[in-house]
């Protein structure tokens, strides 16, 4: 629903802009290019401001977008659209004025130094290229830390872009554009203020590492206990942003990363299973018990409030964590359920938590765990699914694994007749 609202705003802004520029009756190539140049500028900035407004990451707010992952995707798409349009904006205007000679086109792009209205636009665009370069992997796969630091340049870029646009508001009727910028800018400023000021003070909960359970040589499960007065309230299968404050860590001190909660909300503390997937998660394998962490969340709505009783869960590798949390919760409550969990892993040695899941399955009715081993059975296929889960198409499906498995499982389920609306995918690779 939130996603529809966002794109409606973009469409409305584009429609008003289109009416305004077409209404002015552009005649001839140069004027059409000029109109397009102005329109790309306006719609590009609208998308940039909406992307900024979505960056707030207010816990609970992401539910309107079907979870934080989908919200990030919308943010990412808005960013891409905005960069494409804003790159086209000066080129179109320059091409338009080239009808008065090439020097006019170049003078429009590179005016005298005192034309700060244009230079602020240039600076905003250059900053956008810098802070969006890692997001779109311009120069190879980005380093998480560098990406996060560079992305902060979005703040100055947005301000400079607004300064630039404020000076050229002549496309929309009356001062309507100024109202538009004021409205969207306050949304964006509110979002950034939440993220960098309020969320640090009230959004982050203090916890302490009580225990570090080595599940395998590249996987630990942290047991956290509250160190402040407030505790996290969450649903099974949601995720949080965790920042560790242990000076002995080799990387990632104070750096926040998203992790799925593997505990049941009924437990006193939190449990987070962390696989060694990068510098920061590798360092966490040796975090000292007793060290402090902050937790911000919860995010995500992998399991909607009203899910069907008959469910199929498909997990791939470390994608087992949300299901583990959910299974522990069902187990704790002795909830009646009808769940088939297909757990896809490379081989037996990598089937983490399988023993615990089997034990849970023994104790609650109609919860069945079906392991699938790649080295023996090859990729997941419809034959396997049909034989293990005969009533496949009647079940609401939840998939969490690496992107390859997610899309394969989705294809298989659609082929088996599961409705698209009944397939939920949680991606833990955020972008």
């Amino acid at each position: 629903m939130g996603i529809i609202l966002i794109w409606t705003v973009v469409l409305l802004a584009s429609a008003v802009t289109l009416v305004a520029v077409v209404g002015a009756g552009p005649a001839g190539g140069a004027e059409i290019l000029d109109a397009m140049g102005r329109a790309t500028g306006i719609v590009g900035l609208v998308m940039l401001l909406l992307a900024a407004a979505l960056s707030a990451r207010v816990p609970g707010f992401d539910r309107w977008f079907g979870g934080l992952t989908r919200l990030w995707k919308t943010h990412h798409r808005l960013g891409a659209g905005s960069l494409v349009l804003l790159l086209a904006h000066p080129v179109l205007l320059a091409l338009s004025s080239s009808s008065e000679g090439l020097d006019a086109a170049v003078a429009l792009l590179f005016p005298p130094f005192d034309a700060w209205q244009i230079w602020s636009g240039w600076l905003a665009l250059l900053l956008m290229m810098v802070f969006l370069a890692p997001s779109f992997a311009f120069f190879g796969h980005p380093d998480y830390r560098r990406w996060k630091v560079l992305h902060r340049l979005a703040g100055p870029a947005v301000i400079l872009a607004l300064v630039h646009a404020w000076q050229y508001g002549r496309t929309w009727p009356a001062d309507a554009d100024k109202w538009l910028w004021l409205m969207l800018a306050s949304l964006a400023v509110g979002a950034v203020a939440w993220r960098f000021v309020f969320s640090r003070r009230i959004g982050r909960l203090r916890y302490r590492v009580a225990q570090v359970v080595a599940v395998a040589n590249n996987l630990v499960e942290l047991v956290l206990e509250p160190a402040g007065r407030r505790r996290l309230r969450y649903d099974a299968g949601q995720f949080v942003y965790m920042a560790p404050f242990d000076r002995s860590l080799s990387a990632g001190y104070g750096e926040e990363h998203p992790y799925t909660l593997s505990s049941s909300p009924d437990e006193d503390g939190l449990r987070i299973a962390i696989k060694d997937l990068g510098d920061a998660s590798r360092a966490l394998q040796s975090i000292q018990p007793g060290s402090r962490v902050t937790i911000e969340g919860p995010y995500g709505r992998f399991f909607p409030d009203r899910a069907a009783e008959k469910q199929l869960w498909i997990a791939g590798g470390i994608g087992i964590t949300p299901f583990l949390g959910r299974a522990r919760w069902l187990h704790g409550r002795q909830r009646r359920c009808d769940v088939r969990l297909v757990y896809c892993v490379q081989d037996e040695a990598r089937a983490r938590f399988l023993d615990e899941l089997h034990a849970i399955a023994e104790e609650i009715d109609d919860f069945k765990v079906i392991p699938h081993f790649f080295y023996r059975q090859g990729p997941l296929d419809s034959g396997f699914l049909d034989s293990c889960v005969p009533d496949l198409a009647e079940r609401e499906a939840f998939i969490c694994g690496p992107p390859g498995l997610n899309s394969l499982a989705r294809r298989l389920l659609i082929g088996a007749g599961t409705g698209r609306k009944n397939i939920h995918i949680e991606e833990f690779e955020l972008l």
Partner: protein
Amino acid sequence: MKKLVYTVFIAFWAAIGTLVLINALAPDSAEQVRRDAPASAEPAEYSLSEVAKHATLEDCWMVIEGVVYDVSDYVPRHPAPPAVLEPWCGREATEGMRTKGDSSDHSARAWRMLERYRIGDLRLAERRRGNAR
């Protein structure tokens, strides 16, 4: 999506680079215009009272920094609505050009465009009087 954004990013710099390069290599077009203009033709001279006869939006002359322009053809294309231009038709309009009504000068591009509508100069005597004021 990554490919699309990267392609546009490269296309952007290619377009900017091409524009700058061609402009640097091309002969100065302003000079070209001056050279092309017939040398013999004396610029016409007009008095303020002659200019004042062209004070409507359909027939709009303006005196800007001692030069007379017939901007009638440009009025419909001007970004600000015609009502803003109307009071300046048929008279000395340097102030309007220099201040846009809020003390910001027109762009270099606008000044260059204006040159296309030049029809002559203000009569010397009146120009002097204007300077003395």
